[in-house]
């Protein structure tokens, strides 16, 4: 059984004002305080375009490697609903501002490109709240807030991939500053189109799932739907296109309507707004304002820092992590060492504590001090890991911990020569073995040396001295 998933994501643009009027675009204000005749749909009003909204939208277009349309029109999508003030929504029907992009995600089969079919700009609707006594309250603060709708190709093949895609998309939109992407505030919303196909090529009809309020809900709804559709397919039930609603409490999708009962939106041109023609300079300016994208960053890490591809990939994927990494490297220019520690010890802690890298207590300075103790051979890697665990929570000076716990590695050659000779004396057989060419005698003696020094002997130094002292015998 194969699963075919496409997503439609609505993201509110992080503008100061609404898309077609100068009302503020803010979340959480008292109902119906951010409104004017235009967004309330009073007769006689016309849309004025918010240039900054277009900028943020196009920025998103570039961030997903889309082709950008320089001349665009807007359309009216007509339907009646109380949260819609004009009887139509202004959107872009056949001329989306961005097309043919993609976002690369990490999947079980390795890196995978999820193609983005189109991105268009539109206005948000107001918000209906249904009360227990059967009333509906309307708040038009959100009416006219700028949105982008991102539509993917059906390239996603599991709930897990869908979740990864959404997480990466969210990260990217936040990183470029186009959207606040807060699902809990509704500034990011997602609809899912999903169907399954069996080995003989029989397909279940496409089902659209709405009312998904979290990434977890997306994942659960897809898993539920895949199972439901697979069973239908196995039982030979004929299916038709339909829209279903995710019900969080029961953990089920519930039929809303069959597709043939759907609205005819009767799209026509919005002629109150002339065609928008974007100048080359405008487009160029947006392109230049775009922060470095992960794929470019990865390449730079490989060339500039000589990192291996795996490390460069992981470090560049998330904004917070790459910023943290670059900050440390700026002060302590040993990129591979820094990378090794971040990708193992730091990441492990963050995952365990379920925190963001920006929230860690350990200061850059103390982290760097610890790295330098390793680098200069003052402590062994294992001791350093022990210290890291302590200072990650306490942000204490790693040298202090090292001394307190007596983890300092011993480099004193007099001490080491004495120690090595003691060990050799105690193991005469090893001398014989070494003389007949059995190299493993060195390993055995090294083990004894480390044991006797309680791990404080510098292994490299000790190894050298063991060989020297053996040769003298």
């Amino acid at each position, binding site marked *: 059984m194969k699963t075919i998933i496409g997503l439609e994501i609505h993201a509110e643009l992080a503008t100061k004002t609404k898309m077609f009027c100068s009302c503020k675009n803010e979340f959480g204000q008292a109902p119906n305080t951010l409104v004017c*005749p235009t967004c309330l749909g*009073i*007769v*006689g009003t*016309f849309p004025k375009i918010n240039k900054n909204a277009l900028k943020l939208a196009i920025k998103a277009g570039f961030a997903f490697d889309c082709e950008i349309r320089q001349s665009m029109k807007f359309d009216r999508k007509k339907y009646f609903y*109380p949260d819609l*003030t*004009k*009887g139509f929504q202004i959107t872009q029907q056949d001329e989306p501002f961005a097309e043919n992009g993609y976002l690369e995600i990490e999947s079980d089969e390795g890196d995978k490109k999820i193609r983005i079919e189109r991105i268009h700009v539109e206005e948000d609707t107001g918000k209906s709240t249904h009360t227990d006594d059967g009333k509906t309250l309307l708040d038009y603060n959100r009416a006219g807030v700028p949105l982008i709708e991102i539509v993917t190709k059906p390239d996603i093949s599991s709930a897990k991939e869908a979740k990864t895609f959404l997480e990466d998309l969210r990260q990217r939109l936040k990183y470029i500053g186009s959207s606040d992407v807060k699902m809990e505030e509704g500034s990011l919303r997602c609809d899912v189109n999903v169907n399954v196909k069996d080995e003989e090529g029989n397909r279940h009809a496409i089902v659209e799932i709405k009312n998904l309020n979290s990434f977890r809900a997306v994942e659960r709804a897809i898993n539920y739907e895949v199972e439901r559709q697979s069973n239908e397919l196995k039982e030979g039930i004929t299916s038709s296109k339909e829209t279903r609603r995710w019900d969080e409490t029961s953990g089920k999708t519930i039929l809303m309507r069959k597709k043939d009962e759907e609205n*005819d939106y009767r799209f026509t041109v919005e002629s109150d707004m002339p065609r928008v023609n974007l100048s080359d300079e405008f487009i160029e300016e947006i392109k230049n304002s775009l922060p470095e994208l992960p794929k470019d960053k990865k390449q730079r890490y490989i060339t500039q820092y000589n990192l291996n591809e795996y490390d460069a990939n992981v470090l560049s994927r998330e904004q917070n992590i790459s910023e943290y990494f670059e900050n440390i490297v700026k002060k302590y220019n040993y990129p591979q060492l820094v990378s090794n520690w971040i990708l193992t010890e730091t990441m492990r802690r963050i995952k365990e504590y379920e925190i963001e890298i920006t929230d860690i207590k350990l200061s850059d300075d103390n982290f760097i001090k610890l790295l330098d103790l390793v680098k200069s051979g003052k402590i062994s890697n294992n001791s350093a890991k022990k210290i890291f665990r302590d200072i990650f929570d306490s942000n204490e000076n790693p040298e202090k911990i090292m001394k307190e716990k007596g983890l300092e590695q011993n480099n004193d050659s007099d001490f080491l020569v004495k120690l090595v000779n003691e060990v050799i004396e105690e193991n005469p057989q090893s001398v014989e073995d070494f003389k007949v060419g059995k190299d493993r005698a060195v390993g055995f003696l090294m083990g004894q040396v480390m044991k006797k020094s309680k791990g404080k002997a510098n292994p490299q130094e000790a190894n050298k001295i063991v060989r020297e002292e053996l040769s003298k015998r």
Partner: protein
Amino acid sequence: MNINDLQKKYFDNEITVEEYIKEVFENIKNNNYNAFITLNEEKAIEKAKLLDKKLKENKKVDKLFGIPIAIKDNILTKDLRTTAASKSLKNFIPIYDADVITKLNETDAIIIGKTNMDEYAMGSSSETSYFGPTINPFNPELTPGGSSSGSAAAVAGDESVLALGTDTGGSVRNPADFCNVVGFAPSFGAISRYGVISMSNSFDRVGIISNTVDDALVLFNIIKGKSKNDFTSIDVEEFEESIDLKDLKVAKVELKDVYDVDETIHKRFDKAVQKLEENNISVDTVTLDHLEVLNQVYTVIMSIEAESNIAKIDGLRYGESVEQYDTTEDFYMRNRTENFGEEVKRRLALGNFFASKDNNQKYYKKSMQIRNKLKMQVEDILSKYDIILTPTTTALPKEKGKSTEDSYSSFDSGMFNIITNLTNLPSISIPMNESEQGSVQLTGNRNQDMKLLNIAKVIEGILK
């Protein structure tokens, strides 16, 4: 009465502004033309008093000093009821002023009231008005035309000197013609539409009705221009030259039989052309294609646009709404069924049909194509001629009460009106004769409204 004559009376102390404005309100009450839906009497007289004081104190006055102006009731006036002659807005008090009203309020003009019209400007007889039909002062037995019937009747019946109307498919020029006054529909966007209730928003324009071309020019100069509230608004070209009759090039559209031109109109039009030629104006005959389908093209685009523009009138946030309903859908259905008249409903149904995806919107697409072709053809003519000359309407006004029998026929006789709305061009209707009904329509090049008005002034002089 025109601006100059009235202001002369004020300045010569023959009459005070207050006296004249009171006289205007007397006329309105005595005439019973039903030209107004709502009067602005109290505020108008208050302003008149202020103006008299201003004049007495020798303060600077402006070009509209003491001039009464009537406003079509689809133009929003803050705190003054605006109904669009619809039951659905019969109690609607706007919270903001249209751009044109804001501009007028800064002048010494006096707003008399809100004029009667066809409901939501849909119709050309005033018979679709929720407030009853307007009487034609020029001939009370005949329809006053429409949709700006009240504005034309107010000017023709001495109930105002100036009036604002709106013109979507002839709604200023048609009633001006039928009431035998001047009607000017400028280039699309020349006057901001902000605060004007949209009918068909790619055709709509605010227009002027007056007794003389000069009066229209004075008012146009004050209310024209780009506005930040209307993205489609523009600044038209200035025109400083004087008109030399010898250099004037006029293109007269051939009146073929297929267009069904009334014989009387035809004769009067030929006579007007003859007068122009006698004054050394060269008049060439040109032909226009697509005239026979213009009505259909216009109907398709107009009804589609009107349907979406009127969609916001759902009774939820403002406007009339029912008390009893079952579901949300039922709420919409009842509000719109009970509060819209037949003609509005007919156009909404048409618009829905033409925009539906079932026929792949083929009528809409085809209509847009023909609109573009027509634009190119008319632009081509206007690259060689200064104006295009036609009769304003190709039929005589019907007897009152007969207009709603066939709502299509008025489009047919208004095909020369429709052309300019389809092509965004400025156009003016001037009576051919003071004593008998019938007007010529002059159409100018896009954004050359000032040139058109100056030519119209000359031609007006010749026809008189």
